[in-house]
């Protein structure tokens, strides 16, 4: 589904990503880990076509994001870092717009579906500005899901959610993984074995570890945080 082949990205002299390659198939949930500033968000921006890679290429369903951006982008659902949303809109109005602009076939049904999946019923007509952090994040996830994308890229989907909401979102991600390829970035290491069947750790833009959560567990010690620190250093 997604093939990332040796992408590099420079900001002036600063190497944000250095020769990063990996693959994600339908059915995979890949946990994307790394300390702050490791290049996770930049990688996601390159994959979604927001930024252009200086080297390497990104293939989505064998479509190059730079050469055929329209087809490639239509396959992606994306929740950017910090959950940007049009704050004056209500979730309902906002989702309607996303349906329009993405030419979703049955907008009404799709909106009903995501509102149910993300439990937005009670706030669907309230301006997004007035919503709590957790609700905002769920609206962000809803807009990424509405066109039923084959590739789902979520930058910290559970950040700011309460434990119950976290549980719900993780469950949703697991359910979705049957028909989609999913990448989630996270700071919370415990989340990885729970939802992911693959994980990738990067630091300073370089791949430090790639494997399954079980492999990660086996590789070093007992405590996930400790392993993380070891791999990073």
């Amino acid at each position, binding site marked *: 589904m997604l093939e990332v082949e040796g992408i590099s990205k420079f*900001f002036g002299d600063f190497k944000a990503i250095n020769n990063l390659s990996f693959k994600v198939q339908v059915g995979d949930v890949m946990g994307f880990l790394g300390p702050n500033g490791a290049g996770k968000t930049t990688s996601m921006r390159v994959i979604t076509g927001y930024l252009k890679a200086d080297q390497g290429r990104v293939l989505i369903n064998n479509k190059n994001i730079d050469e055929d951006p329209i087809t490639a982008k239509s396959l992606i659902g994306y929740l*950017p870092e910090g959950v940007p949303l049009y704050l004056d809109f209500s979730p309902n109005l906002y989702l309607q*717009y996303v349906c*329009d602009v993405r030419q979703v076939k049955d907008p009404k049904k799709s909106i009903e579906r995501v509102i149910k999946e993300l439990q937005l019923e009670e706030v669907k007509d309230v301006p997004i500005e007035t919503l709590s952090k957790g609700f905002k994040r769920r609206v962000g996830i809803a807009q990424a899901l509405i066109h039923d994308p084959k590739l789902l890229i979520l930058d910290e989907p559970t950040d700011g959610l309460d434990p119950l909401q976290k549980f719900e979102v993780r469950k949703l991600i697991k359910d979705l993984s049957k028909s989609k390829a999913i990448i989630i970035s996270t700071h919370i290491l415990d989340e990885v074995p729970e939802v992911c069947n693959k994980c990738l750790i990067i630091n300073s833009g370089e791949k430090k570890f790639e494997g399954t959560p079980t492999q990660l567990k086996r590789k070093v010690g007992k405590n996930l945080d400790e392993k993380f620190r070891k791999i990073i250093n």
Partner: protein
Amino acid sequence: MLPLIKRELKLFFITPVAYIFTAIFIMTSMSLTFYFGQFFESGVAELTTFFSFIPWVFIFFIPAVTMKSWSEEKRLGTIELLMTLPINLWKIVLSKFFATWIFVVFSIILTFPIWITVNYLGNPDNLIILGQYLGAILMAGAYVALGVFFSSLTNNQIIAFILSILVSFMFTIVGFPLLLNFVSGLLPLEIIELISTFSFLTHFNTIQTGFLTMKGFLFFVSFIALWNYLTIIKFMNRS
């Protein structure tokens, strides 16, 4: 492209800001016409005084409308969602331009009571007035295209606002008779003519007589195209 324009317009009208803007625009253009333009005292049934103030109102009003178009998307980060939509970049850029232009046109149209007034008071040449309105709308498009470009350069609305005012002012003033007379002794006539062909006022003045000349039309259309093109180039170099 249509859903994008629709969203922009909805965002305009969902808050009271749009209505306040429109009200201020109408109030400013009207008070200039009535107090400084001596609309009644002139005793002539025409809207030339009204339209002679329009460029000066546009210089402030339009940058105030365009300043947030891209800056706000950048500040909120929604630009990331916009740019990752499966839509061509030029369509995204043009949709912003058209939405803002439509809003400005809406404000211009709402000045129609003054048109009714002159018709009530006398017998103006309505074809001329129609031409003047079309000219003003076209010129507004040029100011909008310029303002939207400057908004794309920064995530700070105030900077976008001030830059747009400055550049709009320059393009307006280069044809101002006072300025042209001032430099006429310093520069060769050909250069002065060249400079004044880039001026909004020169083209708008010909339009003001009610004849939307081909030259004026082409000038404003190419001006709009140029600034939109610059905005597209700006976003093509996303890095």
